[in-house]
């Protein structure tokens, strides 16, 4: 069997590959190594990131390239923008995407706009790696899914991988890309294992992947929700319904063609997005298909999202907050007009 590693290790490998290939690649963020300047640790890191994703990198690349920062997101994300504009190729780790509240100016008004405002005389080859997603009992300020916000900003590319192999190939592409990329890592995927090729490889940003083929219904799902959709699709198969599961992998740019072609084939569309329901990726993809694929549709476009509320702490509520295979089946039963689907 091919080699299986975790989503976290796939990201670690991608950073290693990119750093070995280009000495201008640096990693900076809060406790990305940890334990800076402590003699008793020697060249060991104390943490390697809060979830241990960047563990061991400091031993190979040293503290000049693996930079622990103060807890000051505006400071180091802004510095990463400017380091990128002046010849470096930084990876800035924003520990939780919720912390964008502390550094949105650096992303939205600086990094995203410099190239345009300077008439194309600058480029920002910067990756902001950030953790998102509910299900970790981390409450309202550490659990949001904010990729929709970034998708709305011209000048930012947005990548949301759903599997370890995609994470590695997409992250290497993001680091080697000459534009600013915000790279979303779902914290509940870090321990998920999958087949991951060794060495350097890339997956193009802007190319969707059909994770499962089917003729009856298209489910476009984002990030971790690809797995939720695949589980639902397996259950639908028992009913003789073949769902096609499309993983856009990047939301900006969005592979419109793959989504439209799938809808043309199946005539039905359901989008699964764990972000809040207003102005999110699901509404964006709905608008795309309503605009460019209306004639393909035999039924209204449906969405399964989180409710219009912050992420609750209590496990009893957080479990209700997230999309689930059951919620997907309930909506599919409306799309296919078969109530028995709900009781699978």
């Amino acid at each position: 069997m091919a080699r299986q590693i975790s989503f976290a290790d796939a990201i670690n490998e991608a950073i290693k590959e990119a750093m070995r290939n280009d000495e201008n690649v640096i990693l900076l963020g809060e406790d990305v190594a940890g334990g800076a300047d402590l003699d008793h640790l020697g060249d060991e890191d104390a943490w390697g990131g809060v979830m241990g994703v960047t563990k061991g990198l400091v031993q190979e690349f040293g503290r000049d390239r693996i930079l622990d920062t103060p807890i000051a997101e505006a400071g180091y994300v802004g510095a990463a923008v400017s380091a990128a504009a002046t010849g470096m190729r930084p990876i800035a780790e924003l520990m939780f995407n919720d912390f964008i509240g502390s550094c949105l100016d650096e992303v939205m008004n600086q990094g995203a706009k410099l190239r345009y405002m300077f008439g194309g005389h600058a480029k920002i080859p910067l990756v902001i790696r950030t953790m998102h997603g509910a299900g970790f009992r981390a409450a309202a300020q550490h659990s949001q899914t904010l990729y929709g916000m970034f998708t709305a900003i011209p000048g930012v590319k947005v990548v949301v991988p759903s599997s370890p192999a995609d994470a590695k190939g997409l992250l290497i592409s993001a680091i080697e890309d000459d534009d600013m990329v915000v790279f979303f890592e779902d914290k509940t995927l870090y321990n998920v294992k999958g087949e991951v090729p060794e060495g350097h490889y890339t997956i193009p940003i802007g190319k969707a992947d059909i994770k499962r083929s089917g003729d009856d219904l298209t489910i476009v799902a984002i990030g971790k929700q690809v797995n939720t959709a695949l589980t639902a699709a397996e259950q639908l198969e028992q009913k003789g319904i073949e769902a096609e599961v499309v993983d856009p992998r990047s939301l900006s740019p969005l592979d419109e063609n793959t989504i439209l072609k799938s809808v043309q084939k199946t005539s039905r569309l359901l989008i699964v997005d764990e972000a809040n329901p207003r102005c999110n990726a699901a509404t964006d993809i709905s608008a795309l298909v309503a605009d460019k694929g209306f004639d393909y549709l035999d039924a209204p476009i449906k969405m399964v999202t989180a409710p219009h509320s912050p992420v609750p702490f209590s496990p009893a509520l957080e479990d209700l907050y997230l999309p689930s295979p059951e919620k997907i089946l309930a909506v599919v039963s409306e799309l296919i007009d078969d109530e028995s689907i709900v009781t699978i």
Partner: protein
Amino acid sequence: MRVSEVQQESLTAEKAKWMYQKMVEIRRFEDQVHETFSTGTIPGFVHLYAGEEAVAVGVCSHLDDKDYITSTHRGHGHCIAKGCDLKGMMAEIYGKATGLCKGKGGSMHIADVSKGMLGANGIVGGGFPLATGAGLSAKLRKTGGVAVCFFGDGANNHGTFHEGINQAAIWDLPVIFVAENNGYGESTPFEYASSCKSIADRAAGYNIPGETVDGKDTMAVYEAAQRAVERARNGEGPSLIECVTYRNYGHFEGDAQTYKTQEEREQHLNELDAIIRFREHLLSNNLATEDELHSIDENVRQAVADAKEFAEKSPMPEANQLTTDVYVNYKPGGEE
């Protein structure tokens, strides 16, 4: 610069015993959360305050319900010192419907606005502008109240530190900024992350008093806070107090803490421990007897056990709670 000397009100035996009780409540509560968390009963992650009791209690002993505090991700100690109910707190940490925030906030967001406790906070540096705003509100509403911003050494490098303190200073707001310098922002030493020698030094940039005290010496914190609170209540503006302290546990539960040395940990758990030292202070100054302190210890042990039992037996929130409390008034589809 040192806060102007004000008439030091001597600590009464009653107040001293209240302070000791609050410190023991914090320690026992956190030790209980530590123990229970390891069994997997508590969801999510928790950041424990044990070791830093002298700061929360030394400061909050000068406050009442009309005064506000803002807190941090390490907020349990501030909650207890400000008078939050142990049962409601523990239930919140368990995510139960009977929690202070109905289980919606959890450890990192415990709040009790009726006690002036404006919430633990998941965002480092989140408290500075919030405390400044609470101070502005107290001043304009002429309540006589003050606002205290507790923050860690990590937050002292955050941009909001500058914006919050500067605003409080230019408007002479009744705000006390209390740095809890426990030596590490997450796993990163204070000395690495901060360009200043002490956080108190930064007060000079805002033309406000700043002083550094031994944050494990309860009386030192108590006295410094008394000067700063008095100054704030007199309309003389904000102050900054840096309390040098130590957290007995990791940044969060599960942190291997390899950045600490065994020697420093043992020293802080023993001869430098704030509760041991405050206990000795009370006894040697005849502010309490061994019997009285023993009885406080026992009562607290029971109160924390009761809180745990209450949390365990409480129900989870009902499903309809998922989308309530987002707004005061909101019609999802708009007006008809």
